[in-house]
């Protein structure tokens, strides 16, 4: 009963878009102007007009998206049309240019449009691919709950450490305080766990990378190997399994943030470059008519 944006209304807008492309290509092939094909022929103007109108209409999705009480179709329909007609723009504007590129304002306008469309393609691919991965990674849980579970593990681990030598509680606190996910955009997109651990040693505390709880697990492993006390060994074992669980949770959180990041990041290019595109488009149109 669900219908994705690409399948909306039996792919009505894919068909519209293919028709539009087909007619444009046919006209381009059939058309034989005196000069080499360019934006200044009647077909060039027609394709340019269609392209400019498309750009304005495609931009209007931003407004339609926020017109929450609008009953003009569904947003899914609009987005579906946005995707398919947006893709056709690539062909239409290329035909409009007659493949004449240069270091000028017109080509800048074209380049910006390509960036917008390319980022849009990234978005469509992300939208098709990531929700499923995100759902699988969350496995019915939620990021907030994963965070709570991590805090829970920290408390349980500290309770176990109460009956152990002080260095264990110190290590657990250092492990907790050194945990750092996210932070920078790059870290989020890479799904990097940039945690560090201040490991107590003879020369004072030494900071070591603790991605995936590696340093903490190694430290505990060493302690276990050295331990001769049965009760202490049992407790270290408990701590090891808690930290292993903590590692899994951190991994899932990183992955979740990473996916969310990729679902969002393309918009940071798509939207501002669209604004730039609108500006250069106006300049492109005005300059063309000035030099006419």
């Amino acid at each position, binding site marked *: *009963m669900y219908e994705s944006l690409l399948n909306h209304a039996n792919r009505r807008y894919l068909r519209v878009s293919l028709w539009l492309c087909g007619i444009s290509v046919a006209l381009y092939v059939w058309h034989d102007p005196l000069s080499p094909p360019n934006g200044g022929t009647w077909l060039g103007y027609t394709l340019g007009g269609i392209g400019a109108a498309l750009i304005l209409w495609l931009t209007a999705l931003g407004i339609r998206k*926020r017109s*929450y009480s609008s*009953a003009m179709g569904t947003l899914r329909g609009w987005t579906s049309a946005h995707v398919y007609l947006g893709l056709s723009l690539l062909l239409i504007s290329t035909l409009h240019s007659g493949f004449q590129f240069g270091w000028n304002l017109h080509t800048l306008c074209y380049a910006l449009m390509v960036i917008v469309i390319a980022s849009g393609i990234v978005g469509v691919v992300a939208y098709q691919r990531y929700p499923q991965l995100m*759902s699988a990674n969350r496995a019915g849980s939620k990021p907030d709950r994963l965070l709570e579970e991590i805090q829970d593990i920290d408390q349980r681990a500290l309770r176990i450490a109460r009956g152990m030598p002080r260095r264990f509680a110190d290590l657990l606190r250092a492990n907790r305080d050194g*945990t*750092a996910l996210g932070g920078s955009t790059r870290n989020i997109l890479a799904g990097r766990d940039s945690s560090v651990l201040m490991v107590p040693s003879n020369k004072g505390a030494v900071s070591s990378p603790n991605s995936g709880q590696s340093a903490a697990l190694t430290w505990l492993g060493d302690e276990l190997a050295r331990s001769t006390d049965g009760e202490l060994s049992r407790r270290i074992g408990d701590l090891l399994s808690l930290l292993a669980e903590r590692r899994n949770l951190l991994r899932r959180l990183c992955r979740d943030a990473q996916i969310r990041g990729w679902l969002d990041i393309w*918009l940071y290019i798509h939207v501002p470059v669209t604004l730039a595109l609108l500006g250069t488009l106006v300049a492109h149109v005005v300059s063309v008519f000035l030099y006419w």
Partner: protein
Amino acid sequence: MTKVVIAVVGSGPGGLSAAARAAGIGVSHVLLEQTAAHANTIQRYQKGKHVMAEPNVLPLRSPLAFAAGTREKILDEWARGLAAQNVNVRYGAEVVAISGEKGDFHLKLQDGSEVLAENVILGIGLQGNPRRLGVPGESLPCVQYTLDDPEEYQGETIVVVGAGDAAIENAVALSKQNTVYLINRAGEFARCKDGNLTLILKTIEAGKVNCLYSTQCSSLVETPEGAKPYELSLTTANGQMQLPCDRIIARLGAIPPRKFVESCRIKFPSSDPTSLPLLSANYESNVAGLYVIGALGGYPLIKQAMNQGYEVVEYIRGTPVTPADEPLLQSKLAGILGHLSVTATLQSMQARIPIFAEVNPLMFRELMLGSSVHVPKAGEVVFKRNDYTNSFYTIFSGSVEIQVDENDPAKRVVLSTGQFFGEMGLLSGRRRTATALAGRDCVLIETPRRDVLKLLSSVDAAKAVVDHTFIVRAIQSGFAPQAATDELLPIAANSKLNRFRAGQVLFTEGDEADSLHLIRSGSVSVLRSIGGREVVTSYVAAGNYVGEMGLLGNTQRSATVRATVATETISLNAATFGELLQKNPRLRQELEETVRQRVASNTHLQGQDHAGELISFLLKQGLGEATDVLLIDETLCVGCDNCERACAATHGGTSRLDRAAGPTFANVHVPTSCRHCEDPHCMKDCPPDAIRRSPNGEVFVGDNCIGCGNCERNCPYGVIHMSGPPPEQPSLMSWLMFGGSKESVYSKLQGLGRSHHHEPAAIDAPKAVKKAVKCDMCKGQDGGPACVRACPTGAALRVNPEEFVTFVKQEASRF
């Protein structure tokens, strides 16, 4: 001992108003309040709560002032009024028995003393008294039965006794800054909401609350030289133990006041716990001189109770007043009053309409206040088939025609003066099963669902008539639209109305098949035993039937059928059904077709491994009683929250939907959003009757909400919340990029290693006026629900019970 003219029991709004009126006109009186302050129920509201003054149209008639405002302001105002009127109040005076008769009542108090009075006004409300600890030492000052503000206590050892929602919520709230023990008499938590169960088990597991199972309190003593001021002795499964503590909070529920009221010889019309005492038009009970006002008499709103307090004193003095609601009724009845008075018109209504005949005049007055009178033109549609309205109509004059056969609009049943219709929608909570058209000179009384249910629970005769009529009409519309009503009477007489609790079995696989069940309300799931395991193979909603295979020749039940929620069915046995088959030759064919479809559907679902699990999951989420539910496909949802923003933007800035919250199974996510239950839990206890159902099925909260929070507590799915003014709008740039965003999970990620304790909330911050908000399915907006319209990826879908099985089939095939 002096005798007063009026003794008022209970200092709620009604009692206060009565006592103040008596004081104001110099009638000897006493106001008996069992606690240490007036208006105990309102004292127990949370600090700063805004109290509303519904119904707005009703004028206030009381010597005490009352207008919407904060709890503190209203209580202060009343305290000033009590002093100004010089009211004779006795605090700490719990009445344990009332004996005697008019002119000579004896009120026995807890402390053994007695009060003599000529008349008694009972205004003790419905809250009841908290169940006591019941051990030696229970009256020590460390024992309390309420918890206003958990933040008040820090660093104490507190014992919470009880295993219900209140005990759990208190224990968890206190555990943040105290050592908390929870005493549970049973071996598990069986009486609480699911959410609280998860919460408490998690809190116990985390070691924040120490829970003692199968444990009972045995005594409590002061220990002045001990480490803690008190010591509680406990009987556990392993023997006795002592628990030193600072405080004991007993949350053992309340004893409903009914037993006490009955001990005063006041009669109730039925054993139904919701039924109300029989009262005269002057609020006098069957015991002469003993009056009942306020919530106990069925009037839960503050202003109503205050007016009654005033009026009842006037009645006792023998100076009758016209009730405060007279002008309201006058305008309501304006169209049909003519030269008659309101009272005379109401009397003629009761005389003409049999189901109202036995209703006491006071209750009928109240019923009419909630009802509306319509004078439709001949041929006008009263309601349409498939409308979701659930009000009840009675015919005051003229006639009404019901189109009983969907396929033949010309076939109509004519109902005449005194008869009623609309009970099918009312009782099942489902869509209207037929269209009703007004006849000539028609005057109709439309009564809202809540008032009718109140009537049916109080007047047995009315209930019997409605139930019988329901059966006849259900059989007619379900199996024999061609048959005349009279022909069906003997068949209806042989049919049985059955009630099943949630989870109860209607019949078991392998049983002898002897009857068919027509589901009148609720829904059932069909289970088959496959490889020793019970697998859900189908779901059947109200308005349909189950067990038909048995009557078509199969002698054994082929599956087990179980009620998913509280369900009512009408069962027809084989002999009765045989008569029906004779009356309607097409029926056999129709039933065979139904069987064919159901078998096909069942085998299809059985072929899919996870279909049963998915149905079970969805039923657990309340789809068994839902009429419309939002389901999100997680493989399509990108988490943009545009659905929530659309909801907020179209509903005054507050979203009624929490997309991320709620459980997920496979790819189907059930967000926290209203299911629009067929018999909505939220509607059950709404004092101003602000929750209604519109013709299209949306359950919505009206503007007259008083913010009491009952609906929030009654909703098992946690989809209603009390909300103040909306949050501030996002900045322009974030609006441009994302349309404004909430606190992101990244900011939390960055804070992970740092602080773990919460900032305490500002305790004395003034509370904004809060009202209940919930999904109204964008009632009145074009294009349907905004959440679905605003989803860019097609992940949001609303499903109703009719589409439920198709939905499961499609989803299960994608696993």
